[in-house]
């Protein structure tokens, strides 16, 4: 299988190696880190993990520390006496705090460790979502962690990230999905996810999760899988144990077949805009025992200023990026598919807007809308619907963007000062499609290196 985690951007490589590294340092050029990506036999984190909390949340912090120990992580409950340790991660637990004053000590303890956070280290803030029944003080305490987490993300360097697990609906801190999300954020799989606070609801308890093959026995369908991000998603789901059916338009059949044969999957040449695409997808998975995971990745661009937009340019983008997903989901729901995990590709353009992309942004914003509305429908059948919004990802498509625009997209806008790789998007999708993410439903997870573009 191709190495999916090597940086493809020459600047990032140059400022991290040899003579060019020295020059870049002297000139004070931005020096994006080489991000650590998942390897099956590598440790979960780059060093020991410190778990800190306010007094009220100490019980939850203990429960998390216990779970981390079970993953063979070197866990500490105190930074004192740690000497010159470089932290692989710091987990701040504030789940039971009831006033803003109560969290200050824990937050400042976290602050005192940041200078000793290792390259590619992780900060994860575990909190509860503010809810309708909360007192103003409790709501303020809980909501505060969101802005806090994003700000920490912007202060970190050297490939380190800060993300949040936000428990909803009374989910236990050591429930399967809370732990699964914490693990994802601590791991190298979330290399390009930064500054995100992901709501996690209650979930079934899974015993003996196989973290190397979390999708073993599952059947996944990936649309637009002949190349780029779609091919990376297919490879990653296959790596995690899924049987993958790759779908793309008939004209892309040659590379589609190559992807299928590489991952021992099945190729289906199908235009997702076909009226019976959902039925065809069901037929294609029948011989594998039915569908468990559907990744709506197929998408096109037809950039044009709205004033110059032709009907064909608008309609094609809506048909492929949005209407096809609605139709396919409806056909699968009508067929009563149980336990279906749907993950749709949105885009940061869909959230922030982008000049020349009114059609694309409409479609991607629409994806976020239908994901929220589909979530309760699939939940009735034991499934989930989520979206992933990639930022600047290094693909054949972005390689065609003019140099200056590309450099702005890569270096200036995201906190991580670089574009992501297709594998980064694929890792987020693999996480959201897995049984451990069952409590995450109706959410949009950004994979954007904490791009400033957004609401």
């Amino acid at each position, binding site marked *: 299988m191709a190495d999916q985690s090597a940086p493809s951007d020459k600047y990032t490589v140059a400022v991290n190696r040899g003579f060019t590294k020295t020059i870049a340092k002297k000139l004070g050029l931005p020096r994006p880190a080489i991000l650590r990506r998942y390897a099956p036999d590598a440790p979960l984190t780059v060093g020991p993990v410190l778990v800190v909390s306010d007094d009220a949340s100490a019980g939850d912090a203990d429960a998390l520390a216990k779970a981390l120990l079970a993953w063979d992580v070197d866990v500490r409950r105190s930074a004192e006496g740690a000497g010159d340790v470089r932290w692989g991660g710091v987990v701040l637990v504030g789940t039971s705090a009831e006033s803003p004053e109560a969290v200050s000590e824990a937050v400042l303890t976290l602050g005192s460790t940041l200078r000793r956070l290792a390259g590619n280290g992780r900060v994860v803030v575990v909190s509860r979502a503010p809810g309708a029944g909360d007192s103003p003080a409790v709501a303020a305490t809980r909501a505060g962690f969101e802005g806090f987490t994003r700000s920490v993300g912007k202060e970190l360097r050297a490939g380190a990230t800060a993300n949040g697990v936000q428990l909803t609906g009374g989910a236990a801190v050591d429930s399967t999905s809370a732990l699964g999300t914490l693990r994802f954020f601590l791991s190298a799989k979330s290399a390009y996810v930064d500054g995100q606070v992901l709501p996690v609801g209650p979930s079934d308890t899974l015993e003996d999760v196989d973290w190397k093959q979390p999708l073993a026995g599952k059947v996944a369908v990936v649309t637009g899988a002949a190349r780029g991000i779609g091919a990376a998603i297919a490879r990653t789901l296959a790596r995690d144990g899924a049987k993958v059916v790759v779908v793309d338009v*008939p*004209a*892309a*059949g*040659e590379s*589609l*077949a*190559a992807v*299928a*044969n590489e991952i*021992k*999957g*099945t*190729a*289906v*040449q*199908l*235009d997702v805009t*076909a009226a019976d695409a959902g039925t065809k997808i069901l037929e294609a998975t*029948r*011989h*594998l025992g039915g569908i468990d995971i559907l990744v709506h990745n197929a998408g096109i661009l037809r950039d044009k200023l709205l004033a110059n937009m032709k009907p064909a340019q608008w309609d094609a983008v809506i048909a492929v990026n949005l209407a096809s997903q609605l139709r396919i989901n409806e056909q699968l729901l009508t067929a009563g598919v149980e336990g279906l995990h749907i993950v749709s590709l949105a885009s940061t353009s869909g959230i922030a807007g982008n000049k020349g992309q009114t059609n694309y942004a409409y479609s991607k914003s629409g994806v976020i809308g239908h994901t929220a509305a589909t979530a309760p429908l699939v939940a009735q059948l034991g499934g989930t619907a989520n979206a992933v919004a990639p930022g600047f990802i290094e693909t054949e498509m972005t390689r065609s963007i003019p140099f200056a625009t590309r450099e702005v997209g890569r270096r200036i806008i995201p906190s991580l000062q670089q574009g992501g790789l297709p594998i980064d998007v694929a890792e987020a999708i693999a996480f959201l499609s897995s049984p451990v993410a069952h409590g995450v439903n109706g959410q949009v997870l950004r994979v954007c290196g904490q791009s400033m573009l957004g609401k």
Partner: protein
Amino acid sequence: MSTTPSPVPSTREAVIIGGNRIPFSRAGKKYVRTSNQDMFTAALEGLVARFGLQGERLGEVAGGAVLKHSKNFNLIRESVLGSSLAPTTPAYDVQQACATGLEAAIAVTNKIKLGQIESAIAGGTDTVSDAPIVVSDRLRAALLDANHAKTTGAKIKALLQVRPKDLAPATPGTGEPRTHLSMGEHQAVTTAKWGISREAQDEIAYNSHQNLARAWESGFFDDLVTPFKGLTRDDNMRPDTSLEKLAKLKPVFGTKLGETATMTAGNSTPLTDGASAVLFSSREWAEERDLPILAKFVDAETAAVDFVHGHEGLLMAPAAAVPRLLARNGLTLEDIDFFEIHEAFASTVLTTLAAWEDEEYCRTELGLDGAFGKIDRSKLNVNGSSLAAGHPFAATGGRIIATAAKLVAAKAAETGRPARALISVCAAGGLGAVAVVESV
């Protein structure tokens, strides 16, 4: 009309799961410098991807190429080794001119029916763009003599036999070794004998392009073809051709016969590059894997005619093979829903149909009581055939079998009763292979 399935054979069934081919391309275009092995491997890879056969050990893979270099003695086995199939899948080469692909299918389905194997792929490939170049017989003889000679003197003496004109390569052709006539010239004689008109031939060609184009547009080939080298559809197809345009073409065969020549580049197949493969198995093998079963490969027949002495036309063997095949299976022309008659030339189809309608011919040549019958033309090559798709010799059989299997499956699903297709392929050497495919 018989609505009951064909008599149950004494052996078990061989079923067709699906097929795959690369788009066919006119010689000298997209697949220039692409070898037979590259093309057949691509056809296999698409089939493997379609049915998830990676690492699978199949019973066997059989196929071949008509224009084949001696270095490709194990063409099919080498293609298997270059594919994602298990390297423990046996393979062998078959060659029966234009009937190669169909003959390979007959061979593997017979083994499946006998229980010798559970699964197989049959197919073929041909390239004119990458055809082997042959040296002249005199040069070859001199080189072989020099190689066998024991002394330097004898070697020099052998090489001195070579004359400048011997250095010209023998161009690859489709001429018959015994008559030295090209296939087109042979067919021109048959066409004239049966009095087939230019208009009737052009109409066959026109329908072929129209039908193939409609099939492509409707997505019929979405699960039968995998693009290759940037080509996504058959590039010989001319959806915009018209009877007027076809009528303007100059005849190229039969111009010296003394009668008005009727065979043009428009109603004859062009030289083409391409490859195809079809997946067959026992019913059990397909059901164990929950793979779709399109149809069963019911039975087949081959025939040959004496064209050397001019008794019969070179490409008329299927006219004899079909009545024997249908009789053995208790079928008549009325029981057939789709006629897939390979369009080597438009007139090949027409002379075959004319022969079956001719009482005298059927009595004296085919040993029947009277005319074999007339077919419903609306059932003929409904999704196009070789005039439009092109004809990479050994790949044509696989193209037709997969198309026929899909047609009968769709028809049976629509009508709720069995549907049958008759496949007929004529070949050089006065050969012909025919088969019946039936829905399950």
